[in-house]
């Protein structure tokens, strides 16, 4: 296992959008290196757009995104791909591919036109399969897997890429609660063991509070609140950012908070 370097990812007054429509507006953000950051916010608030900007899929209209002080757009594409990885919301499994072959695709940025699958690549793929507990599935076709297994395989592919920073766009969508928890725990484990900086877009607030060190709450393309889960998840914030009436509890009194939406009126 190659441990991750701590890389500094900084956004200065970044605006992102499609054509005439600006979605992320004048946003500044420092991603804490080596930590888990979760971006939360209502649908359409610009969470995924922000992730697209950081992964170079979208060029900022204004402002700059810096990696260790240098604009991300000044890095050659393969070098950048060895530093920052993205797991999109809906990746596509190529037809007729096995798990081992799919995870090996993560080694693309390390391979040249002619040089393919070195011993180092095999080591990285083997580690990624073990870390995500998918070694036993390695021989299977990706289409045979369950949703939870498939998502772990995609994580394995992103791990095989051995990046210092990993961006995940709603990695738990379409999973049931047990598998959501399992997957986020896996990501936390990888963050602790390997030191990978993770930035993920999450919908499920309780799970975001449980998994992340750092929360970024967005509304209408700007950051409304950022900090530790306990700092960000207050009843007032939930109301102003999500329009959600809820109370925030700390049952174990250790900062691990739980959000409970208010009961329906007349149901008490």
């Amino acid at each position, binding site marked *: 296992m190659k441990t991750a370097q701590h890389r500094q990812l900084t956004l200065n007054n970044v605006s992102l959008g499609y054509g005439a429509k600006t979605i992320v507006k004048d946003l500044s953000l420092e991603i804490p290196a080596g930590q888990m950051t979760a971006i939360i916010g209502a649908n359409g608030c610009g969470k995924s757009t922000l992730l697209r900007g950081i992964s170079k899929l979208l060029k900022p209209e204004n402002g700059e995104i810096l990696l260790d002080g240098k604009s991300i757009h000044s890095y050659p594409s393969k070098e950048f791909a060895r530093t920052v*990885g993205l797991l999109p919301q809906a990746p596509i499994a190529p037809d*007729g591919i096995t798990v081992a072959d799919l995870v090996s695709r993560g080694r693309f940025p390390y391979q040249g036109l002619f040089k393919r699958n070195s011993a180092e690549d095999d080591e990285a793929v*083997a580690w990624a399969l073990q870390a995500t507990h998918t070694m036993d599935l390695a021989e299977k076709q990706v289409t045979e897997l369950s949703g939870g297994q498939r998502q772990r395989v995609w994580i394995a592919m992103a791990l095989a890429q051995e990046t210092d920073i990993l*961006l995940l766009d709603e990695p738990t969508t379409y999973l049931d609660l047990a598998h959501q928890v399992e997957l986020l725990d896996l990501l936390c484990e990888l963050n602790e063991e390997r030191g990978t900086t993770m930035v993920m877009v999450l919908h499920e607030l309780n799970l975001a509070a449980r998994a992340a060190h750092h929360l970024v709450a967005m509304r209408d393309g700007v950051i409304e609140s950022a900090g530790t889960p306990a700092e960000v998840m207050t009843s007032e914030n939930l109301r102003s950012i999500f329009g959600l009436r809820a109370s925030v509890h700390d049952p174990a009194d250790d900062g691990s908070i739980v959000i409970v939406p208010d009961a329906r009126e007349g149901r008490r």
Partner: protein
Amino acid sequence: MPAFTTHNSSPAQRVKDLRTRSHRRPRRAIAVLAVAVLAVFLMRVLLGSYTVTFPDFLTILQGGTVEGARGARFIVMEDKLPRAVLGLLVGMAFGASGAIFQLLLRNPLASPDVIGISTGASLGAVLGIVYWGATGFSLSIFAVVFSLLIAVGIMALSSGRGNVGHRFILMGIGVSALAGSIINYLISRMNLNSASSAALWMTGSLSSANWDRISILLLVLAVIVPFVVVLHSRLHAIAVGEELAHSLGLNVAITRWIFIVLGVLLAAVATAATGPIAFVAFVSGPIARRLIGGAHSLTASALVGAFIVLLADFIASNYIASGSMPVGVLTGVFGAPILIWLLVRAQKEAG
């Protein structure tokens, strides 16, 4: 990280073994296909209405004449062999081109004969025949230029966010219909003689095979094929979706353009040489995928394409009662049901 267990093999070795194992079936299938293509090639040359023995064939190839059958040399060298070689080359070009588009646009319907590339080549060729009396090399140029223009037009019409592949196919079908009606217009204005030769060309036929045509095709393929071979891993890399491919460090836009151009060129030069042989580009990819176990393979598709063209030409020119028939008629007759079958299956998978 858990300590590597020492029994038998390391996890890295296991990964390596798995990769070798998962490549075993495709490799085997490709080897079998290559043998099958060789067999049907020899069948086309040696058997049929004029039979040549294998030793005689070798004698002829080495420049000798067969005692007691002086005409054999002419029939083999000027008819049967060029026909088989041309069939082999265009079959491979059509097969590879279809597989490129199907992989690139992630849709089994995305084949040059469905999305207007072949029709574009035909339009160019017919225009060339009618207005400039083009033949041989200049005819190829017309076909290539027009199919590239058509491809650029389809790209421009289908650009934008979202499912580009899907729009590309729909636009292609529309453009194909437009080009087809222009061809019909041109044919209706021609004199009967050139109309019938244009119509014959449009069915796709190996009957005009000669060594000149083969050398032009070989020359162009010698330029295109190395690009396909060197870059094909990038084509496969796009298959994980645009966003993920991009984040793996692949320049998706450039790779897509390169392969559209390569796929168009393959289909266009093949069409220029024989006319559009119906459905070969279309069915080769799916058949190849069936044979190798689901994955896409340009090599396997090229071999399937060659096999289909050679076999269809052998049957069409030897076993059709009314005498020789253009190979495109036969591939059309068998290709259409396969198209319907694919559509039905795609619908089942989606539902």
